[in-house]
């Protein structure tokens, strides 16, 4: 095919019915972009700017704002012990939860991929919690953890481990972990399904070649499967990380941040400061939100850089 013919084929003539998207006029592009741009500006861009603005002000009830500069940030960083407690809890929840979430999901997926007995039933059982709302999950687990009539203490008692019975959500040393277990129970199924889909998408010839080379199951997992799943796992890590950094609903339902702020997360603290302190001042909670958002962005950039694949796999 000559160059002229190729050019003719790829650049439709003016006025033809088949104008490619890349050749649309600026006006057409604007018309198509406008709805999304308006929605984005109204629901994302403006709130972000407004939150930034509020964080530098004390906001009065009638919308009257008093400029306080960095006072909210200084107060937050130097005088607010509850904030730092919330940061610590969120960090534990995020780091431990993210690793457990992805690792657990991968293990469950491998279990199903290796055709474990009752794999179809297990897939349904493990995925079902994902379909349940946090409110339902939270209430179920509050009952399970109940000291007097909860199933967990009942089982411990039945196993002769009565000494281990305790108020799982009422003890500051166990409350955060109890909430974390609930969270994992709900989300492991989601990670499992994503990992399972990625596993089935792996090129069978690579796995077949490994088997022909008498590669053991562990070696195949470490040297072939996990490297090939790396993009999927990285995406799951980032998603899980973001989700846990913003953890709110489950904590709110199960403990309200207690006992003694042992399960307080940054999100529950922002909510309390914004809506439960009988004030219309959104300045201080906005400062928390801005600071926390910045930290999330920094961590995600760091994570992405650290886990970025340097060598391109070829298969």
């Amino acid at each position: 095919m000559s160059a002229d013919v190729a050019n003719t084929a790829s650049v439709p003539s003016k006025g033809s019915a088949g104008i490619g998207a890349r050749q649309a006029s600026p006006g057409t592009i604007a018309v198509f972009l406008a709805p999304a741009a308006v929605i984005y500006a109204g629901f994302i861009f403006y709130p972000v700017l407004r939150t930034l603005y509020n964080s530098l002000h004390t906001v009065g009830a009638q919308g009257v704002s008093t400029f306080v500069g960095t006072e909210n940030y200084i107060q937050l960083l130097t005088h607010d012990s509850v904030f730092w407690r919330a940061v610590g809890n969120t960090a534990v929840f995020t780091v431990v939860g993210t690793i457990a979430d992805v690792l657990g999901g991968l293990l469950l997926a491998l279990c199903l991929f290796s055709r474990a007995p009752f794999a179809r039933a297990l897939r349904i059982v493990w995925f079902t919690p994902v379909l349940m709302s946090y409110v339902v999950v939270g209430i179920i687990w509050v009952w399970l953890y109940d000291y007097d009539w909860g199933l967990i203490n009942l089982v411990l008692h039945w196993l002769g481990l009565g000494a281990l019975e305790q108020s799982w959500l009422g003890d500051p040393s166990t409350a955060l972990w109890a909430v974390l277990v609930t969270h994992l129970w709900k989300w492991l199924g989601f990670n499992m399904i994503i990992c399972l889909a990625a596993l089935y998408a792996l090129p069978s010839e690579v796995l077949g070649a490994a088997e022909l080379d008498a590669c053991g199951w562990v070696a195949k997992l470490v040297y072939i499967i996990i490297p090939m799943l790396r993009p999927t796992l990285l995406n799951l890590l980032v998603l899980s990380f973001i989700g846990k950094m913003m953890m709110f609903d489950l904590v709110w339902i199960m403990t309200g941040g207690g006992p003694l702020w042992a399960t307080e997360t940054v999100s529950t603290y922002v909510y309390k400061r914004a809506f439960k302190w009988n004030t219309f001042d959104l300045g201080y909670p906005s400062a928390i939100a801005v600071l926390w958002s910045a930290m999330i962005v920094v961590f995600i950039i760091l994570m992405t850089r650290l886990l970025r694949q340097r060598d391109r796999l070829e298969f």
Partner: protein
Amino acid sequence: MGGATAKAEDITLTVWSHEADETAKVALREQAARNLEASHPGVHVKITWYEKDGLDSALRTALPAGEGPDVFYVEPGETQYITGGFIAPLDDLVDWSNIYDWARAVWKIDGKTWALPEEAYTDELYYNKDWLKKLGVSLPANAQFSQAEFLDLIKKARAADMTPISQGVGDRPYPGAYILAEALLRKLGAEDYGKLLTGELSFEDPRVVAAFTWVKELVDAGAYPKNFMTLKLGESHQYFYRKPGSLLFPMGSFYTGRAFVPVDQGGQAADFPLGIMQFPAMDDAACNECKTVAVGASFAINAASKHKDLAAAYLNELAKPEMGKRWMETVYLQTAVKTAGIQFSGPYAAYFTELMERQNGAKYFTGMPVDILTGQCKETFAQVMNKAFPGGLLTVDDAVKAMNEACYKH
């Protein structure tokens, strides 16, 4: 037909109310609306029913945007609507002759009255008469045990394998503090207790420490259930009168709102041996006859309303004596509307008679701590006095220190 009538036909008075799930209250407020419509031809009252959090969110958004209703539900402590300038003062708008002075006083801030109280309640200590008898203990003539007697009662109940006090803080920021707050009120007297709550008196005051120490003894004696941290308010009611049962139940007298409904709707059995005792007398107390009275459901008029007179007329409908009587007879709660001299009848007459006996000679302190405290102090109260201290997680020193740091204005 005159122009005034034509104008009136265009008026729809909007009311936003909480308590959508309490049918007796819904019926009563709707009745007030229909009464207003009957006396003001052409006026329509539209009540929108919310749950509490939904109402809060809606008001927070609507009021600053100038889109709020003419009348809305508020509770004491929600002072942000006053400081924000969203509520019209009611002193000259509403007929106050039907409202108890002490109830109106709750809403008097900076010399003005900001809302009309409808619901009132006192902090009461309910008990199971049969179980008290089973322990071989008689209630004193004034229905009030001493500090030592009460501690002994808790120990006896535990020894008899009874849960002494049904109480849980799974979904509320205040019930765990009933015993401690009432002990502090009696020990300090109303004036100093008020100072404690407003940060003018230190939590390290020896009298305060003494009250905390006594409550710690109760906690250590096993006063509260093991699932105290997760037991929800509704569950704590059931725990007391249905299963597994407890000897005592400190609760606002709004107890009856849940208890006096049919058994199949979660109410107590008709023959449940419900009794009311006074909270214990404290040693060296300033006021052992003191008790907390509080106002609940109240209604305010939007400062931006164009129909303030009509809004006030709606509040006056709610405050009529016959509505107060109907409140008592159908909602089974106390009310801020004057009902003195009312003859109790029906299946709960004995209860209301006993309740009124417990009010004899009482000196009232108005407002629960959660209605008075704000900001960090309120949050610390919820975490420490309501949860961790009665939950046995803190020593007296730690609890006092935490409260002082958050509340005491040095």
